[in-house]
């Protein structure tokens, strides 16, 4: 029987584009996944894989999404929220998500989970309880937008009964979903968020702390999935030898290349495990 290969792409902002390199490396060996799972930034690329969107479109989406105008207004809105000039509630965000939604729509349009060529699961966090939830129906734009609702930056997203925030708050690399849905082999691509050295504002410290927290939850859940399940998990953790800023879309070719390289190191073992 053919082995079921699942791809899990974790949170990591623009670094998640490394998964385009992963796909390239798999395709050149004729390896086809049968399920895609994604969280936060990784949800975009899981969707791209599951919809069979080609690499060119995926790259132009990445470039559009990681342009500064996506977070326009951040600084002035932050100041207003800090002074109490504007109210800040559970449905607030420091950035208007209009631009982000427009850009996501260019790639995903009206496509739903029914349009995928393989099962797709996207993880987001329920805002009040902090629990990880799996989204597997409805519009792809809504699910990816919910999964990547960076706390405080983008407003949480209401889908059905739930208000959702960034999946990285609960489950940054959702290997458990691939285990639960049935996989013989799981390729998990994960990223630690880059850490800044200097902080000179309240906002910088807040985002730094969020990164620390998310990196720790990433490691902790990764540890548990590896230790406690019987699934065969292959971790691909690309390394970057240079600083890559949150909106450094000029580094895209390098990011993809590092993903391809990290995959190539493991490809012979992956083939062996699939063939066995």
């Amino acid at each position, binding site marked *: 029987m053919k082995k079921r290969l699942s791809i899990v792409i974790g949170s990591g902002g623009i670094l998640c584009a490394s998964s385009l390199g992963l796909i390239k490396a798999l395709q050149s060996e004729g390896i086809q996944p049968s399920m895609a799972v994604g969280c936060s930034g990784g949800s975009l690329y899981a969707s791209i894989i599951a919809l069979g969107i080609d690499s060119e479109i995926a790259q132009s989406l990445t470039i559009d999404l990681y342009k500064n105008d996506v977070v326009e207004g951040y600084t002035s809105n932050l100041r207003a929220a800090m002074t109490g000039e504007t109210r800040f509630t559970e449905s607030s965000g420091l950035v208007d998500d209009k631009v982000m939604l427009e850009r996501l729509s260019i790639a995903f349009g009206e496509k739903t989970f029914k349009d995928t060529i393989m099962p797709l699961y996207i993880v987001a966090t329920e805002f009040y309880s902090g629990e990880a939830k799996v989204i597997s129906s409805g519009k792809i734009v809504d699910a990816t937008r919910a999964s990547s609702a960076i706390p405080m930056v983008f407003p949480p997203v209401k889908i059905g009964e739930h208000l959702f925030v960034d999946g990285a708050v609960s489950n940054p690399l959702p290997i458990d979903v691939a285990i639960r849905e049935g996989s013989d082999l799981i390729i998990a691509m994960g990223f630690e968020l880059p850490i800044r050295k200097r902080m000179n504002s309240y906002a910088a410290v807040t985002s730094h702390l969020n990164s620390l927290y998310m990196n720790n939850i990433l490691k902790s859940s990764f540890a548990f999935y590896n*230790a406690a399940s019987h699934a065969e998990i292959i971790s691909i953790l690309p390394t970057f030898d240079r600083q890559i800023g949150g909106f450094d879309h000029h580094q895209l070719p390098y990011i993809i290349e590092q993903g391809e390289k990290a995959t190539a190191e493991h490809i012979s073992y992956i083939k062996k495990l699939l063939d066995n």
Partner: protein
Amino acid sequence: METTITPGKIDVIAVSGAIDALTAAELIAIFHKHIHDGHPDVIADFSQVEFMSSAGLRAILASVKEARSVGGDFRMANPSAGIDKVLKMAGFHNIVKIYPSVQEALASFGS
């Protein structure tokens, strides 16, 4: 995957190749046999391990638990940068004693 045992005050078991679903069971059997053969303390030299999946991580945990349950300890030495990245991501440095060299691992049992 292959293993080589170097006997000493504390035996060092060097592992090479891949530890994954195809080889992990064999590795666990080797370590368990050794631990129960009167060597509750053991050092695993990981310098020649090229690839490790979750099955490899579980093989380490199984061996650590086995050694500790008979009053010994399973300590690791010299994982390559790629393998160490996975060990760190999986929080193994917080629960298993891992040293940069076999010498340091040996010395750790001295105290």
